[in-house]
């Protein structure tokens, strides 16, 4: 058996990873909640964001945490454009078409990155990458602690944006009833694109928080995208609090499975949860309506 300290550390580490997972899932669940589509390109877009972080660090020496400032609006704009000019027009409003178009996008993005950056795995060499904070008996990684705090902060900010601002109200109106929203003068195509942009902005922040302790290669998004789908399904498609809770829970499960089953089998716990939730209760465990 493992000592309580090791288990406690695994739990806390899992929760910290989970918060960043939640941030990734947040973009996915937001897009699902409003556009009612499953965005298969989410993982590839995350990979693109991670490469962007790496690139500005290598080329301009920009610290990943500072990179949040330019990259978030950049990815918002990118997401806006992708939805408005590619996904929207190409799918003719048909659900299975959207599924296929986003799949096509993910293939294009992933392989464009492969063509541009080759398949090498890259990391950032920041001077704080391995710093730790003592927390009682636990030694916690400083950048991951920052990631945890920032992810939760962004979740709260996004929630405030949706519940307090006019843009948020328009987004929620479109999510509930797009036809009615268009009747009261809301530009649905614009709101869709804004929502997709917000989803991509979340990815940019997540990428900046991940990169100090993680690595990037063109295929890395695949590892995250299924985890993010699991969180979204678990938390209830479209639910922001659900995504946060789901993310923390999945981080926790992954960390413990990794501890007890080893690295190669660690992820299986996540997929089994995923399948079970889909089969038993596809509307999610935290009560959001499908």
């Amino acid at each position, binding site marked *: 058996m493992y000592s309580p300290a090791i288990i406690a550390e695994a739990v806390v580490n899992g929760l910290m990873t989970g918060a960043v997972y939640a941030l990734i899932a947040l973009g996915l669940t937001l897009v699902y909640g409003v556009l009612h589509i499953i965005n298969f390109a989410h993982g590839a877009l995350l990979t693109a964001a991670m490469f962007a972080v790496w690139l500005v660090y290598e080329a301009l020496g920009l610290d990943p945490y500072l990179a949040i400032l330019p990259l978030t609006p950049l990815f918002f704009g990118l997401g806006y454009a992708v939805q408005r000019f590619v996904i929207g*027009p190409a*799918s003719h409003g048909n659900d299975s078409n959207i599924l296929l178009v986003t799949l096509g996008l993910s*293939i294009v993005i992933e*392989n464009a990155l492969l063509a541009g950056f080759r398949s090498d795995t890259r990391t950032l060499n920041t001077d704080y990458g391995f710093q730790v904070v003592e927390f009682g008996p636990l030694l916690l990684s400083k950048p991951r602690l920052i990631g945890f705090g920032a992810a939760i902060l962004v979740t709260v900010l996004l929630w405030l944006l949706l519940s307090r601002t006019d843009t948020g109200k328009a987004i929620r109106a479109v999510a509930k009833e797009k036809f009615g929203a268009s009747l009261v003068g809301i530009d649905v195509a614009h709101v869709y694109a804004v929502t997709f942009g917000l989803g991509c902005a979340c990815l940019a922040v997540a990428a900046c928080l991940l990169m100090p302790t993680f690595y990037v290669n063109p295929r890395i998004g695949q590892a995250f995208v*299924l985890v993010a789908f699991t969180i979204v399904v678990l938390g209830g498609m479209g639910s922001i609090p659900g995504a946060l809770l789901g993310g923390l829970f999945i981080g926790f499960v992954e960390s413990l499975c990794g501890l007890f089953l080893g690295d*190669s089998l660690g992820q299986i716990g996540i997929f089994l949860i995923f399948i079970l939730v*889909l*089969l038993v209760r*596809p509307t999610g465990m935290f009560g959001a309506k499908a």
Partner: protein
Amino acid sequence: MTFRDIAPIVVLIALLALVPAFISANTVLNFLVFTLIIALAAQGWNILGGFGGQFSFGHAAFFGTGAYAAALLQVRLGINPWIAFAIGTVAGAAVGWVIGYLSFRSGLRGSYFALVTLAFAEVLRILANAATFTGGAAGVLIKLDVRPGNFQFESRGAFFWIALALVGAVLLLTGWIERSRFGAQLVAVRENEAAAKALGVDTLRVKLGAITISGAVTAAAGGLYAQYFLYVDANIAYGTWISVEAILAPIVGGLGTVFGPLVGAVALHGLGEITKLAAGSVPGIDLMVFGGLLIAAVAFAPAGILGLLRRSARSRGAARNA
């Protein structure tokens, strides 16, 4: 099926069977065999996705099962490769039935069905990658022992013919489905499940039938892959690449048509080779083209290449009549 349905399939396969008589370059035959394997996997997907409207994103689950069964049964248990191949195909059908039973019983459809199939394939990939019986991450190597009785051949032409025969058999099978009660009910499920039920269609049984046949066909492609390359590992057999290939070919070729998957696979991989020749050795460039084509097909040619051909034939006919 009538003679008119069967004749074009037989003629096409007979013509294609002549190819090795003219081309003996190994690289070309390699390309053709690989393309046929993809076409076969895609034909499997098309039965469920094209005719039944159930979009699986995890056909790797069947491909991998066929591939691993073919490899493991002969390497670990000494079973004759031909029999191992047949068992692998049946195993694919069984996996199809189980995944179908679980998901269709729970009423999963659309995006949810796509996600759950993807997850099943990933679970199998992780298991195959971790278990010692499957050779773990190192995979399984099939011993080189070139004898026809051993499903290994001196010439690549022989493999080409076997792959072609299987593709031809599935063309006939799909043609039969198109003209049968099962096919009519399957298409009805795709178009409108509630209406199909009201007309007495046992939708669960029809969908289960489709995913079982679909699993068997794609597993046969996997078995063929293992036998041709004599090597299988988890990322090849259960990797997302094959799930994607199986989706791409029917959509680009013509969703829910008999020839769509074959046309799509040939067109995609033909174009992929051309792109590689043109762009040099940039990795991923062919897949970029595939992804772009998928988007373009959905946006501009929902009936695929066959749909475009039919449309242009009709407008040419109309021009002549005018």
